[in-house]
């Protein structure tokens, strides 16, 4: 197993290097203008700025330089002279928090709903649900965000007012977003793992309460840390609530489609026929026999499409005005700040690679055939 993990990590590292190299050339060749031209008015100052930033060197040399620093975990400096890693780390907690909550909630809803839809005998229900989720999945983000702001935010403001909060979150203590994001991720992932364990061992009550238990644990943790008031203020911030809901809606469409396709594929298998012939109740066939087999292909498809989901989140963040990776991305495209753009693409790549490795390891733990197959 250790060998397998090592191999996957090595693979991830190579894949990451390739992504960064591709991104480096794509960004440098595609982005039209020079940062220096934007700053300097006279040709002499433009040349000076270019020399200062090292932009006068050949592209290949710049690339080797970038890769040399990247391998050591250094994302370099933005053209204003700020560390790219600290710029990205400042906005990353918001994006990761929204992505974790949105992705996990959407996945849970999609799994549950997709299973019901695929199992339903009424074809009208199935086709309506499928068409509906295709529309959700392809919703135009700015319009979706507008609808959520127009219809949802008045309610949210009432709820905030009844809790004694202002219409915008007050600036909290530094590092609050980091604590919140880490807490949300730990709580939800813990809940999901507990749920998977309960499903395997057939603890039905545990299966149902696992994720709510994680949420309660998270809220309890806030009280224990004494940051309840500030945390709730930020968790209910209109823009991040809208961004999370938009992500849930879009990702729900996708995960439901993937899950219902998976279940209806599994339903044609012989073991379902056998179980029915033995007289096993339908709900048990669905939840215990078919769903576990359908879940893994669905999860792996969702995880491999994750970079796309992050790209969608970048668009959503920009449309809602959340200050996250998306806003930073558009701001740096606007100013032609190449190192920051590269840093963001690299971070998206790192998240994708880490998720892929985790997925592969979990799959290999569950299914020994995969472990054998890939070591040969």
């Amino acid at each position, binding site marked *: 197993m250790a060998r397998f993990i090592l191999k996957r990590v090595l693979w991830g590292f190579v894949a990451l290097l390739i992504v960064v190299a591709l991104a480096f050339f794509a960004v440098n060749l*595609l982005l039209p203008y020079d940062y220096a031209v934007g700053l300097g008015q006279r040709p002499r100052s433009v040349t000076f700025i270019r020399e200062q930033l090292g932009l006068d060197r050949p592209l290949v040399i710049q690339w080797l330089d970038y890769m040399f620093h990247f391998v050591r975990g250094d994302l370099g400096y933005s053209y204003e002279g700020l560390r790219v890693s600290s710029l990205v780390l400042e906005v990353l907690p918001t994006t990761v928090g929204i992505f974790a909550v949105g992705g996990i909630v959407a996945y849970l809803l999609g799994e549950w709903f997709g299973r019901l839809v695929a199992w339903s005998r009424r074809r009208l229900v199935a086709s309506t649900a499928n068409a509906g989720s295709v529309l959700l999945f392809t919703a135009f983000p700015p319009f979706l965000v507008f609808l959520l702001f127009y219809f949802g935010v008045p309610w949210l403001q009432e709820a905030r007012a009844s809790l004694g909060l202002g219409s915008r979150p007050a600036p909290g203590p530094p590092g609050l977003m980091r604590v919140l994001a880490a807490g949300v991720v730990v709580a939800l992932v813990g809940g999901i793992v507990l749920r998977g364990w309960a499903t395997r061992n057939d603890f039905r009550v545990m299966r149902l309460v696992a994720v709510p238990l994680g949420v309660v644990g998270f809220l309890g943790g806030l009280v224990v840390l004494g940051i309840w008031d500030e945390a709730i203020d930020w968790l209910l911030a209109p823009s991040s609530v809208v961004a999370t809901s938009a992500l849930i809606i879009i990702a729900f469409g996708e995960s439901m489609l993937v899950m219902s396709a998976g279940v209806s594929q599994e339903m044609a298998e012989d073991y379902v026929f056998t179980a029915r012939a033995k007289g096993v109740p339908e709900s048990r066939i669905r939840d215990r026999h078919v769903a576990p087999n359908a879940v893994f292909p669905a999860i792996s498809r969702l995880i491999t499409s994750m970079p796309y989901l992050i790209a969608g989140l970048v668009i959503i963040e920009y449309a809602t005005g959340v200050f996250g990776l998306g806003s930073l991305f558009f701001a740096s495209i606007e100013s032609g700040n190449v190192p920051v753009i590269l840093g963001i693409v690299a971070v998206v790549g790192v998240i994708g690679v880490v998720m892929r490795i985790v997925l592969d390891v979990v799959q290999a733990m569950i299914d020994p055939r995969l472990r054998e197959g890939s070591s040969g």
Partner: protein
Amino acid sequence: MTGTLREFEMTGWADTRRRVGNNKMIIAGLVILGSFAVLAFIHPVLRATVWSDRPDIYRPVTGHDRSIRHPSGPTLAHPLGTDPLGRDVLSLMTYGLRPSFIVAVAAAASAGAVGLVAGTSSAFFRGRYDRAMTHLSDGFMLLPPPLVFLIASKRGLMGPLELGLLYGLLFGLGPAAIVVRSRALAIMEKPFIDAARSAGGGPRWIIGHHVVPHVIPHLAVVVLAGVVGALVTQGFVEYLGIGQYRYGLGNLVYNAFAYRFALGTGVPWSTLLAGSLSISLLASSFYMISSGLRAAADPRQSARRT
């Protein structure tokens, strides 16, 4: 083959037609796509005929109807209403469909071609070439084409055609190549490939006549699903107003928002819905055809349904 077997034989085309005809998703997707295609083509026709006596009202970007208040709801003169600036929404929408179609077709064609070449060649030649290509595809998988699309759209020199081709190139070398490669590897193990080899078939013949036809349906599934991302991103690029100035559906949505605030009018629902629903319906028609094809290509599922 004897005569008795012949009546049970089914040609590839007849089989395809039966499977596609039985699948509601594909039919729905094709109907939506077809109606948008008609709408896109109807714009010059309408301007030449019905709208020809009042060109100043129905001109796509600069038209204005002085006789009514704007934005207005659907009327006989303006079937989809007018936007806050008094322009006819039907005219704007049918005009704005064109760049979306260009992006979709360019992305699908280039992703298909690139994916097919990259995937089949790496399955056929194996060895070091295959390993290098697989690593490259893994890299492209992690580099989301929408982000590159957004970066490139800033260039201003690139119109919908170039952006669509770029998106297709990235998508073709990533997900499409991976799917094609795995299908082609499975096909290469089949006995009929050995038979073709021993009968003296060269690489070009075997790839062209035995591998490609088996891979095409799977390629279509993944490429059509990829077009969804290209269309939504194109809409967003137009919405932001970056990229070469060319009126599109995203502009329709953006202008509805922008002039609503600037002029203080009510929410121009007809404009907003026309723009954003066109983008999502057009994108979902591709997705529907893709997921319908996936179901139709799976013999177990289509057997269960009949």
